[in-house]
């Protein structure tokens, strides 16, 4: 049986509902798909505190920030748990929680190519103004993923 590898990048916001609903409606009970839920997070700053009281003060509270990342990872696993109640089995759904090194779109493309992804499902953010300040992630992914990978952008 040939599995279809589907990558679902999630922002862990309400906007993810479009992707999840699409996946559930289209692929629930289909044992030939493998789903990867991906969230690329902004890593907490690493600060060099050498002889710098400002940096020391900042670094103390950033430890708390690192702890908050656990909340996001748990949110990703809760999404997986939800898919398991919707007709997918454990072996079909995987979670990937990766730090952003360059930007979100590049991390998605890099992962998709490395993982042999067949299909990427993205929810286009409904924000009408952010696209004027920063390029659209879905557009960048679609433009740079290359041949052989389908990209569904849900509006």
């Amino acid at each position, binding site marked *: 049986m040939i599995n279809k590898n589907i990558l679902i990048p999630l922002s862990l916001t309400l906007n993810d509902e479009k992707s999840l609903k699409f996946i559930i409606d289209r692929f629930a009970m289909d044992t030939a798909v493998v789903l990867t839920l991906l969230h690329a997070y902004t890593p907490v*700053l690493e600060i060099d505190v050498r002889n710098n009281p*400002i940096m020391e003060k900042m670094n*103390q509270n950033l430890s708390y920030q690192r702890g908050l990342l656990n*909340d996001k990872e748990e949110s990703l696993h809760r999404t997986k748990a939800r898919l398991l109640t919707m007709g997918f089995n454990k072996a079909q759904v995987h979670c990937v929680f990766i730090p952003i090194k360059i930007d979100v779109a590049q991390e998605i493309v890099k992962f998709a190519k490395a993982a042999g992804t067949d299909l990427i499902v993205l929810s286009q953010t409904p924000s009408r103004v952010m696209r004027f*300040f*920063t*390029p659209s992630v879905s557009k960048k992914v679609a433009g740079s993923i290359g041949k052989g990978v389908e990209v569904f952008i849900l509006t």
Partner: protein
Amino acid sequence: MSSHNKIDLDIYQFILETVTSSNSLDAMSNQLIQMLIGSMKVKGATLFVLNAIEGELEIVTTQGLSSDYVNKGPILVDKSIEIPSNRETVIIPDTHVSDQLQYPDKAKQEGIRSIVSLPINVKGKTIGALRLYHSEVWTITPLEKSLLESLALNLGMALKYFRLVTTVKAIKETLADVHPVWL
């Protein structure tokens, strides 16, 4: 410098260097929010930009707040930019005794005890907002207020810069697609 100030000139300068040296809005806003939270030891912070068509504030970056709380709804009374609370600095030293919150119970559950909301203005027009949330009662000092308002002014210039850069890049990409066709 008073030790009671959450932000002082040294921290302000350090944060400003980060704001003015970033290459993308994502990087700048994430680093800014992390630094504000880290240096001021507040619970969380959110950077908004104004959707002028809808008249609402949209989140650019938020940290320190749970996903459930961020997705629940507006933090202050209304997201609408029309109301004064989004056009001027609003200080809520204690959420337990304030009537400005739309979801006071949610704020309580989230552990938010005080909020400072700063408008981001460029040439007199509000284009966004910066909000800080703290888990303790916070009576902001005049120095803290001045430095944060000054930071908000600089954020306005940074947002305007990123807006222009994105536009120029989009035009460049369009020209790159069209140009070879005619040659």
